[in-house]
Structure formats: C-alpha cells, structure tokens
C-alpha cells in the first residue's frame, strides 16, 4: 500500500481544464519528483493535496484512508505540509511568528508566549540545521531566499509525514540548495514522503527515487529515476522530441556600442566596472552568488545609486531612477528578479500589464486609442505565444512561464533596444526556456543588445556571445568564443578566493 494514491483526479476552473486524469502514487520513505511544463497541472495537483483546491473528480487515498481535505487546516491535520512558490508568509510578522502562525504557544489568558515561541523556533532551526535568519526579524525585511527558507521551516514545524516542495530551490543560492537537497534525503530516510517539484533535472537525479511526469493535466508516466535518461523525461514532458534547448549561436554583434560603462561602482559591492555591450550581442554576466551581479543590474536600471559613466548608444546619461533608464527607443528595459512582486501586477489583466509602461504609444492627442492598444497587445500575445484565455485574463492566474512571457512582452513594447535580463528563466519549464533563448537570439539578430544573468550557469555558457565574470564586485575577466566554459568561468570567479 502506498502512502498517497491519487487516481483520475480532475479539476476545472470555469471552462479551463487544469487537470483531466492525474494519477499519482508515492510511498513513505521516498523523495518523489513531480515534473511537467508550466501549466501542466502540477500546481493544481499539489493544491488539491494541500486542501486549498477541491477536485471535481477522482479519488484520493492517504495511508489507505479516503482523503478529502475540506481546507488547508484539514490537510495539515492529516500530516501534509506544502511549501508553495507563492509564499504563505505574512510580511509584517516576525520569522518566529510566521513559523508558528495560528499554532502559537498560548498563556492562560490567551496571549502568545513570545519567549517560548522564539525558543521553539531556534530548536527547530537547530534540529534541521536550517540556515534561517534570526527569529525576531520581520519577514518583509528578508530576501527572497531567506523567505523561502522560513517557509520551509514553517512546513517542518508541523512535523508532517508528507512534505511538498514546489520549486523550492529556484529562489535559493547554491549553499542553501545543497542544504535542502540533503534535508530532503534525510527526511525520506526518516520515513517521510517528500514530493519534490523542480525543473532542475540534476537535482532530481541526485535525490529522487521516482519521478512522475504531468503533461496537459494528465499523468504521462512514472519512472525509477535511476532507470530513465534525460531525453525520455524531457520527451514525456513535451510530448515530442524536444527541439534543441539552446538555439545556434550566430554572431550578430556589430561595431556599434550600445552600452558603455566606465568605472561603474555601487557602494562597496561593485567597483570600477568597464564594459562595452555591442549592438546585436548577448553578453552573459557570471560570478559566485553575491559578487556584484545583482548590483550591476540594479545600477543600470536606476534602482541603486551608482557612480561612474554610462553611455547609451554613444550618449552619456545619468541613471537615477527607473524612469531615467526607461526612455523609449534609446532606453534600457529590465526583466527583474522577482517577477511576482516587481515585474507584474498580478491582479491586473494581461492587457493592462503589457501596456502599462507604454501608454503614450497608443494615445492620439491625449486620448487612448483602444484599437491601437488591442493591435499591440495581440501582436505580443502572438509572437510570444502567451497562453492566456483572453487578453483580459488576470495575470496572476497564468502559469509561471506565461507570466514571464508577459513581462518580456511588456519590456519589448517599450521599444528599448538594450535589455537587461536578470535570471529570466528562474522557475520556468524547459519548453518555455527554449522559447526564451530563441527569442533572445532573434532579438540580438534584430540589433538588440542584451545583458543576461542566470543562476543556472550552463544557460550563460550556451547562450551568451561573451561572458563578463565578476569577482568581489570587480570585473575578473571577459571571456569569448571557445574560452566560454563552465570550468573556465568558475576558475575566473574563484581564483582570488583560492589564492587567499
């Protein structure tokens, strides 16, 4: 008897079928990976397990008992804890308050025993070696990675028998990723079931015994991870042999300099960066976590104050705010790190999100031209293949990959020809990743200049024409041609650390 048995689960939202026949069997004591493209129904399925969404059909069994959680609380009581991509942390509460939210230790008069709560938090962190921030810090002051870790701590605090990790490593730096992979294996060894959702095949191979693959709301296959190759997994996900993930790299760079940096510095985190980004070029930015990549992008987009000279298409400019950076055809457009809180208005429609930054483009004499707006929006939906029911669908209801495409569309509509892409493929499925890489090469061929950072190094190696490697906030090397390899980038990024 397996711990979780789901047979023929279906779920419709209005006319949209999110799940049609999802089958899933997983046993106690294993790490079971769940794979599928964005929109394949993984999120809906785990929301059903977590009691947040109720299925329209199918049967669910937990440890042999029929399992129909009425709400999240019932799922928790049954021993299922989920760590969602959409985090459940409350920004204005502290780390400890969030971990024990609604399960606080209470005194006789119904008030929370703060000291005991804090001690319990520290004990929890100790027990699972959680690299979490101090229990007294407020969550809204934490980085995305720190929040993700607190979210995991919150799930662990319930001592669940089933723990669901949805793209949990996509927000984590490498050290914390290693911790989580180890933790998942330890939990499985303790006899718990870990359902692990990730797009990173290497992670899945490292920790999962079995992998179940969803496609278009239905289960395609369950494999023993050791007995299946990557090609088969990807083919199962896509339903066709995958086109090459990385498009051919055809040199399209011209002699024209799109973006010229001289002595760019941000505080003490980025120092004296000299860089020339050419028209038609894709330049990768690489380095160890926290060595200035983020500061470079923030400075160029005007989020951080910077010193030094910036020239855009030969004209010196001073970037003090995002508005300065976003000036039409000669401007700079950014795909930000955290698409949920910075890039998109989740409660607005796809159409509004696309056209928000570019209202002047379809106004005539100060009046909004609806037909022009519609034409622009339709064009973006078509070229980017955004899977939205209608342009008026709420952006928050799209899958992660489609949300990212909307951000791309928004950026392209600004007509800026210098693009800053900060980890644009984070948490996105392989199919959409490939589309984004092809789009990047197409744009480069049209004369766009692209500066590109990815937390997944092979992406930089395979997509960029040149790679700028940062080390301790300084430019360590610019690699091009055959010099671009993971090995070489890593060496440039670490060489000083090794000498020390």
């Amino acid at each position: 008897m397996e711990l979780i048995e789901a047979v023929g689960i279906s779920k419709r939202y209005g006319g949209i079928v999110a799940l049609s026949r999802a089958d899933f069997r997983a046993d106690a004591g294993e790490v079971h990976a769940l794979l599928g493209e964005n929109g394949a129904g993984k999120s809906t399925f785990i929301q059903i397990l977590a009691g947040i969404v109720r299925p329209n059909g199918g049967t669910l069994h937990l440890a042999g008992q029929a399992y129909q959680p009425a709400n999240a609380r019932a799922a928790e009581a049954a021993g299922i804890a989920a760590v969602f991509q959409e985090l459940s942390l409350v920004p204005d509460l502290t780390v400890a308050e969030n971990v024990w939210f609604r399960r606080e230790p209470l005194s006789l008069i119904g008030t929370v025993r703060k000291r005991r709560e804090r001690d319990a938090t520290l004990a929890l962190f100790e027990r699972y070696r959680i690299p979490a921030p101090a229990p007294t810090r407020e969550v809204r002051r934490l980085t995305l990675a720190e929040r993700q870790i607190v979210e995991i701590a919150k799930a662990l605090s319930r001592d669940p028998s089933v723990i669901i990790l949805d793209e949990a490593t996509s927000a984590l730096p490498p050290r914390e990723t290693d911790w989580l992979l180890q933790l998942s294996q330890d939990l499985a060894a303790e006899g718990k079931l870990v359902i692990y959702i990730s797009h990173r095949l290497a992670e899945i191979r490292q920790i999962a015994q079995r992998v179940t693959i969803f496609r278009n709301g239905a289960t395609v296959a369950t494999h023993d991870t050791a007995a299946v190759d990557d090609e088969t997994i990807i083919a199962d996900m896509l339903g066709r042999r995958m086109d090459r993930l990385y498009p051919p790299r055809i040199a399209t760079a011209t002699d024209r300099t799109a973006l010229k940096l001289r002595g760019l510095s941000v505080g003490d985190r980025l120092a004296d960066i000299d860089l020339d980004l050419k028209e038609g070029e894709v330049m990768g930015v690489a380095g160890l976590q926290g060595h200035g990549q983020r500061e470079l992008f923030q400075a160029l987009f005007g989020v951080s104050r910077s010193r030094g000279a910036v020239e855009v298409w030969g004209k010196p400019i001073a970037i003090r705010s995002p508005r300065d950076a976003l000036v039409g055809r000669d401007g700079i457009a950014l795909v930000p790190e955290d698409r949920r809180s910075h890039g998109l208005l989740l409660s607005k429609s796809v159409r509004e999100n696309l056209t928000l930054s570019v209202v002047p483009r379809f106004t005539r004499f100060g009046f909004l031209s609806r037909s022009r707006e519609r034409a622009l929006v339709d064009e973006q939906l078509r070229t980017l293949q955004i899977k939205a029911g209608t342009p008026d669908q709420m952006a928050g209801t799209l899958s992660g990959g489609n949300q990212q495409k909307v951000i791309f569309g928004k950026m392209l509509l600004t007509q800026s020809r210098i693009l800053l892409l900060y980890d644009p493929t984070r948490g996105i499925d392989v199919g959409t990743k490939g589309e984004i890489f092809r789009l990047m090469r197409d744009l480069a061929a049209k004369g766009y200049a692209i500066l590109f950072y990815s937390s997944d190094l092979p992406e930089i190696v395979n997509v960029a024409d040149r790679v700028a490697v940062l080390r301790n906030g300084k430019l360590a090397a610019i690699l091009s041609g055959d010099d671009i390899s993971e090995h070489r980038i890593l060496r440039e990024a670490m060489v000083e650390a090794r000498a020390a």
Partner: protein
Amino acid sequence: MTMTLPSAAKPVAKRDGDHARDRSTWLIDRAPFLIACGMLAVLIAIYGTLREGVFSFEELNLDTAAAMTLLLAATGQTIVLLRGGIDLSIGGMISLGTVLAATQFGGSPLQVAFAAVMIALLGFAIGVCNGLLISVLRLQPFLVTLATWSILSGTALMILPTDGGQLPDFWMAFGNASLLGVSSSVGLLVLLVLFWVWFRSTRLGIEIRATGSNQRSAELSGVSILRINLLAYGLSGLFAALAALYLTTQTGTGSPTIGKDYILPSVAAAVIGGISLFGGRGGMIGTIVGAFILTIIGNLVFVLQVSSYWQPVVSGVILLVAVLASSLAEKSARRSLS
C-alpha cells in the same frame, strides 16, 4: 546540469550584524510612532508654558475626558485599519448610540444598564453586518461603511430629529466620578491600554494584523477571512457604541449628527500614531498618542484665543508630517536593505 557554486554569502552565524541591523530596522519601523511621541511632547511643552497647572492630575483628567470619545472610536478604527480596511460607519453608530441612550434609558439603574448593554451589542451586530457585506459580496470597505454610515445617520435623525433627550443624573455622574484624584476617564484609558496589550498578543489580534499585512498569505496559512472581517468590523462597531455611551455621560443629550465629527479624526489619530492605511503595521498606543495630539491642539487653539478654525488646519499639518515620516522611514528602510 545544474552546477553548485559555493556561496560567498553566509546567511547563518553572523549574530552581531543581525543585532545591529535589528536595532536600526527597529528604529526605522517605529519612526512614525516615535515622531508622534515627539510631537506630543512638544505640544504639551508649549501648552505648559502658556497655561498654569498643566502638569496636574486635574488637567490629565480633563484632557482624558476630552479625548476619550475619540479614543474609543479610534480603538475600533485601529483594529479595522490593521486588518487593512476602514470603517466610516462609526460616525452613524455614534449618533445612533447617543440618540438611543437619550430616548431608551429608563430611570432605574437596572434599566439603564440593560439599555447600555443592548446599545453595545447593537454596535457589534451592525459591525458584523459590515463585515458580512464586505466578505460575502466582496465590496469595498470604504463604500460599504459609507452606505451604512448614511443609513445609521438617517435612522438616528428619525428617532430624534434634534439634540435632546433626558439622561439620568447618576449616568452623567459616572462619567465624571473620581477616586483619589483619578477620574473614571483615566481609569478607562488604563483599561483601554490593558485591553490592547492583551488583544494584540492574542491569536485573533495576530490574525487580524496578518490579514491586513497580506490577505492571501493569511488565507494560505488557514485564516478564515470571513471570520476576521466579522470580528474586526464587529469590534469596531462595538467600540463606536462604547464611544457613544461615553459621549452621553459628557454631554447629557442625544445628538443625531454628532457622530460625523469622529469619523475622519479617528482615522487621523491612528495614522498620526503610525498605523499604516495598507494594514498590518502599527498599534493602539500610537493611536492614543495621536488622539491626544488632536485633543491638545484643540486646547492650544482655545488658550491662544485664536479662531477655532485653526484647529483643523494645525491637525492637517500634523497629519502631513506623520504621513511624510512613515513614507520616509519606509524609503530609508528599503535603501538600507538593497
């Protein structure tokens, strides 16, 4: 293949840095409240130099009595603001409460006590209705409570078209009673503070704050938004009714239009005291400071013998300072983070 790079950032084991950062964010987060305390101190100092005997129990009793109606109304408003909503209907509830007290109070203490409890429960029930409309029909709190304010005001005018009515003497004596030089109003203030210290640490208090901070997160964590709305607006209605009852001990009459004077000041007191209109942040102690700031401004205008129209002007300026302070604090917090 995904490569695992050793990280340069060390998220654990740098407790010293954490503490320094804790302290600076603690200050930044409380900047609006601390600035409000500073403004109150300055106002009291000015008031003290202009008038004899400001630093006495007598003055404290008087000012607390003057501020108490606003304080009670603002307590309810604070709870709703922390939930991320707003309650305009308290104006109508206060009018209706005074009118009901003036017309329904009988002569005997038992009858009065019964009527007072019924008025308090009515306030709670009307608040629950607000919460129900907001949750079930998914309407804007601003519009729902604007509508109920109008309905309640009209009802109050139907019951008692002009100021009047009769309240028993012992009822009014209660409001001004004192023990060892401390008036019942100061006693109420102490109770209010105790209530808040207790309430903010209860599970309900935390859930209300959490819902105001991020409704979706709270919902994902298992909070019933319906329950939170019913209780938050219910408590707001209850405190509005208590404000009305207190007001009658001071004025001795029912006033069908008096409530509107408390709607925006209750919001202003909370915001001056550092409560975010976006929910989740701030506390009742700030609201108390805010309410006293507004009250002392009234005293100052009186002592300086300038036109009483200066009171709203100065209150407005102070409100601007408070809003500016919280916005600057938020910006500096963001800068220190990035």
